[in-house]
């Protein structure tokens, strides 16, 4: 049970303000999710390189000399940016799989990876999480945030959203899935594994597994309506945009706003209150069992 926010900028000149706008939206959703918060931010891209976001509960130890160690393990240059409990390691895309393997062996938790996506999530109130990571100062083309009120799985970093199960893809969720255990087993048989007990991660894994099988993101989202049981409003991020889908019953709230500058998503209208030009925006609610998509 949670609050979701999303912001997709249509104008490049707004990019430096993305983090600032998203942070206010995220903090407004604190009541819906005081347990943990997270954000996926789609920022700068370096040709041929990929960013891997990792987390550690003992960052000082874990991140000391990590770039050097990784460089020698994968025989390829690594650059590292440490922010609080998270580190973003940039490596050549050809060695991504190897790098993730090495990082996991070192006991680091993989938050996600991609050419532009970085994921930051932690336990705690959204405002504290935002300030720890300096979300306000982050720029980018689009971002998705989540505040969590944990239902059945634990209040941990790994249980926080967004969940990423493929490069540059992430998913946040408001609701509660009722067939996630079955689906987890089904995906595991196909060799798709999840890292937490969280229902949303299964939704994310389902979507990326469908895409790996050749479906478009749109088709994969359509598939959630058929194959996932329970209540959900999903927002999914990709390198080029974001998508929204609600289950057919559509009890969990969702509201969208669009201006010439941006498309915004939130669980409640309140999250839009500080967005520039919101009074003149087109504001509407996504229909049930309908996939929406914005791409640049």
């Amino acid at each position, binding site marked *: 049970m949670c609050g979701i926010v999303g912001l997709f900028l249509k104008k490049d000149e707004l990019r430096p303000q993305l983090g600032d706008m998203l942070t206010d939206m995220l903090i407004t959703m604190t009541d819906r999710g005081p347990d943990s918060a997270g954000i996926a931010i789609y920022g700068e891209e370096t040709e041929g390189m990929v960013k891997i976001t990792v987390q550690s509960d003992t960052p000082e130890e874990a991140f000391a000399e990590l770039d050097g160690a990784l460089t020698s393990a994968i025989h390829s240059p690594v650059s590292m940016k440490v922010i609080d409990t998270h580190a973003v390691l940039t490596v050549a895309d050809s060695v991504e799989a190897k790098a993730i393997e090495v990082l996991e062996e070192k006991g680091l938790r993989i938050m996600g990876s991609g050419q532009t996506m970085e994921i930051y999530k932690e336990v705690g109130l959204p405002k504290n999480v935002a300030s720890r990571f300096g979300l306000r100062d982050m720029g980018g083309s689009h971002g998705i945030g989540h505040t969590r009120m*944990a239902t059945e799985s634990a209040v941990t970093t790994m249980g926080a959203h967004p969940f990423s199960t493929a490069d540059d893809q992430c998913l946040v969720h408001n609701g509660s899935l009722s067939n996630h255990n079955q689906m987890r087993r089904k995906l595991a048989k196909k060799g798709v594994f999840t890292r937490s007990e969280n229902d949303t991660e299964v939704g994310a894994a389902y979507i990326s597994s469908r895409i790996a099988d050749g479906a478009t993101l749109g088709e994969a989202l359509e598939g959630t309506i058929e194959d996932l049981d329970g209540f959900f409003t999903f927002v999914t991020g990709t390198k080029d945009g974001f998508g929204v889908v609600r289950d057919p019953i559509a009890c969990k709230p969702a509201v969208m706003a669009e201006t010439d500058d941006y498309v915004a998503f939130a*669980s409640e209208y309140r999250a839009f209150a500080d967005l520039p030009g919101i009074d003149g925006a087109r504001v509407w609610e996504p229909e049930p069992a309908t996939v929406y998509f914005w791409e640049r």
Partner: protein
Amino acid sequence: MEKTPDTEPRQSWTFSNDTNSEIRRAAATGIYDIRGGGAKRRVPHFDDLLFLGASMSRYPLEGYREKCDTSVTLGTRFAKKPIELKIPITIAGMSFGSLSGPAKEALGRGASMAGTSTTTGDGGMTEEERGHSEKLIYQYLPSRYGMNPDDLRRADAIEVVVGQGAKPGGGGMLLGQKITERVAGMRCLPEGIDQRSACRHPDWTGPDDLEIKILELREITNWEKPIYIKVGGARPYYDTALAVKAGADVIVLDGMQGGTAATQDVFIEHVGQPTLACIRPAVQALQDLGMHREVQLVVSGGIRTGADVAKALALGADAVSIGTAALVALGDNDPKWEAEYQKLGTTTGAYDDWHEGRDPAGITTQDPELMKRLDPEAAGRRLRNYLNVLTLECQTLARACGHNHVHNLEPEDLCALTMEAAAMAQVPLAGTNWYPGKTGF
């Protein structure tokens, strides 16, 4: 020639006469069996726990002389006006409609005399019960029958019903016989039709929405009333934790033995966890959130004796709530109506067709003639007496364990007679210091 010995006719365990009679009933009618009351199957219960009275290592208190307090305050977290009760036993929500007006009045009279609260139900608030209840909890249910801001403000607390033990996750269907003119009027429904109740609230789903609903209820009632959240005992750890996160002042946790006015038998018997099994996970959730005793826990579902009360409190509840037992105290299923129970095809103790409105005891009915059989004053006194006995029994056990307040009872005052009870209550099997799930020996 000698006759071959006959084997005795052998009944099937799987297809017992009871089972077969239900198959025949289903085949004849095409509708599931609807009845009142709670689960009738045997489940591990408080009977499987015993108290460890004081002797040498602890000192008992002298009965009747040395103080053993029973008072409880509910709703201390946010409400300006918490509910102060003399005894840790409240009367659970039972609707006007399922019960007659005089029965509701009797509950109010008995509870008020004993110093505790009563609760409305799925049918709005009546003058009979408001007038005779010193403390009245107003239930806020999915149907919202008779819901209005005036009654909300004249209630002493508001209980948002998310689920009940007899049917966690269920709505219901009350057949039309009891929807008389008065009941229908209060519920804005035509007379005599079946009532299909929703399983979810019409204007919110989930704890994140519930938090906002609670804000609205508090804003309408000047932040005075404690907000209770009632859940059916199914996933007590999560449900308790989420109720706390949504802003509850009090959590009412109703185990599977909890009663209902009318629900599918399959629901009553096959959904939910025994009350005994619900308490420890709920208390654990409160402890994990640092909210044990800050948010009060009221446990219901199969509470019958002062021993049940004491055991529920020892496991961590702040109070208990009774429904079925209160009805029995009023006169439900009394042997004096045996001849009439027989005519209805049932017997004393087994009468559960409360939804049909033909209750010989005049309690679960809207029939004016049957209603007259219950004298609300006399029935109220019986309920008061019964509540007093429960309290005295609970005090007796608390004193025996050396406590000057019933809330000082603790799990360490208990042992279990069975492995099941030991596992569910997380108290040691008698004679050992071990319960299933506990590591080490």
